[in-house]
Structures are given as C-alpha cells and as structure tokens.
C-alpha cells in the first residue's frame, strides 16, 4: 500500500516541531520560547506553524503561569503522534530501493 507524505508535516519547520514533540512524547510539554530557541525561528514564525498543527489536531497548547510569568506549553496529541509516525514510514518507504523483480527462468 502506498503511503502519502503528509504535506502539513513535510514543511521543514513543522517537521522539526513534530520531531521535537514526538521525541519528548505525549506525556511531556515544552515551553514556547524554549521550542523557539531550539529551532532558531521567530515568535511569529513558530506561532503560525503551531496554529496550523493545532488546527489539524496534531498539537495542543495551554497557557499557564510559572514563577508569575505567563508561559505557553505545547505537547503532541495522539493524532499527531500517529500522523508523524505514518509520515516517517512513508518517507522510509519512498527512499527504499525498489525490490528486484523476479526474472523468468
């Protein structure tokens, strides 16, 4: 079965976001400015990519206060985990060399 590459995840910055969140796992969340610094992007750039991922249900964000400062935390959802794993599988399958066809005797 041919797996399609999810265009939402294929975009380079969103791929990095999803990779980081996948590596942290759904039980952990990362703070917005930390993710921004890790990826080396601007606030606006990260915000717009996160909005797209959130609209697709791949990530969830929540705002809270830590040491009296407002912070936004981001975590991957179950749907996002599945989408990311499917994307990686599709990528690996597309890169796999075609299997040699059996030759007639």
């Amino acid at each position: 079965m041919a797996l399609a590459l999810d265009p939402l995840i294929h975009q380079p910055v969103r791929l990095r976001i999803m990779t980081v969140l996948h590596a942290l796992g759904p039980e952990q969340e990362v703070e917005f400015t930390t993710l921004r610094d890790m990826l080396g992007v601007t606030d606006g750039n990260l915000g717009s990519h996160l909005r797209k991922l959130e609209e697709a249900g791949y990530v969830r964000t929540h705002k809270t206060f830590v040491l009296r400062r407002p912070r936004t935390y981001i975590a991957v959802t179950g749907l996002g985990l599945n989408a990311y794993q499917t994307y990686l599988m599709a990528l690996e399958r597309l890169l796999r060399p075609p299997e040699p066809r059996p030759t007639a005797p």
Partner: protein
Amino acid sequence: MPQDAAPAELQRRLAEATAWTRRTRRHWRHRGVAYVFWLWGAIWSIGYGGLFVWGEGPRAAWLWLILWALGGMGTAAVYLRYGWRVRAVRTDRQDRPAFWPLNLLFMALMFVVRPPHSMYRDGTVVALWILWAYAVLGWQVGRPFYTRWAVVMAGLTVAGFGLLPQRPFYLWMAVVGGLTWLAGGVYQRRGREA
C-alpha cells in the same frame, strides 16, 4: 505533492528528523534530571567516602552539611535551567493500586533501620526517605523509571545495611550507591527514559 520531491530532498528530511530526535532526547527529554542524578551520585560517593575514610565525627558531619548545601543549590540551579522549559503533563496517578503498598513498603524499610540515633542509622533513614520521594515522584509525574530506580537503590541500601559492618557499609554506599546514581543519569541522558 511531497512524494514527488527528489530523493535527495526526502533523504535530507529523514536525516533531519533523525538528528533532531537524537538532539531532543539527549538535551531535553530528561528535563535536567540526568544532571541531578550525576550531582547526587558525586555527593553520595564523596560523603560516604568521607565516612569510610574518617569514620563518624565532626569532620564527616561537616562534609555532609557542605555537600547537602551544594546539592540543594545545584538541584535548584538545574530546575531553574531546565525544570520549567520541558515538563511533565500533569497527571494524577494516585489511584493506581500499587501507590499505597509502595508507600507502606518504604515506611517499613525505614522502620527496619530505626531508631535513628547515630550517623550510621540517621544517614540510612535519610537515604531511604529520599529514595521513597523519588519512587512517589515517579508515580505522580508518570515516570516509571524513577520508581524502578528508587526501588533498586533502596534494595541495595538495605542489603548493604543488613549485611555489612558499619565501615564497609559506607564504602558500599560510596561506590555502589554513587555509581547507581551516575548510571541513572547516563541512562536518562541517552534518551531511554526520563
């Protein structure tokens, strides 16, 4: 469509995903706890090493006081650097059936080494109390590694306490206890689990 992209570009994407996964696990997934483990591994080794070399007395007591202060400051520094950046999604796992039996087990272990009226016993009680806290913490933040590690450490501590005379017990705690802390940090930093 993305699947029509050149193989070189797809290869680049895959390599990037692999590299970012490794980087995230190494630097962030453990939330700095790996460094706390290394810090306390060093403290246990030095503190119990001091007890082994000098025996009980003011010198060892002062050493422990200084080490506790450094450990507290170091742990706070790690939290300020890492703790709020990546954190566990809040979970309440106190309804798990093993939570209370585990608490009782640690309390029972502390009673085994009672009454605490010497550095030998007091130190072991404190060590078990710290391990108990790690075990409970593992439950509460959904990190089974902390719980498993704390149970192993408690087993080693009680085994050393029960089987060894006082002075060799300090050496046991310095070497085996310290190394188990350090190994816990290495394990987490490899991204196996935080």
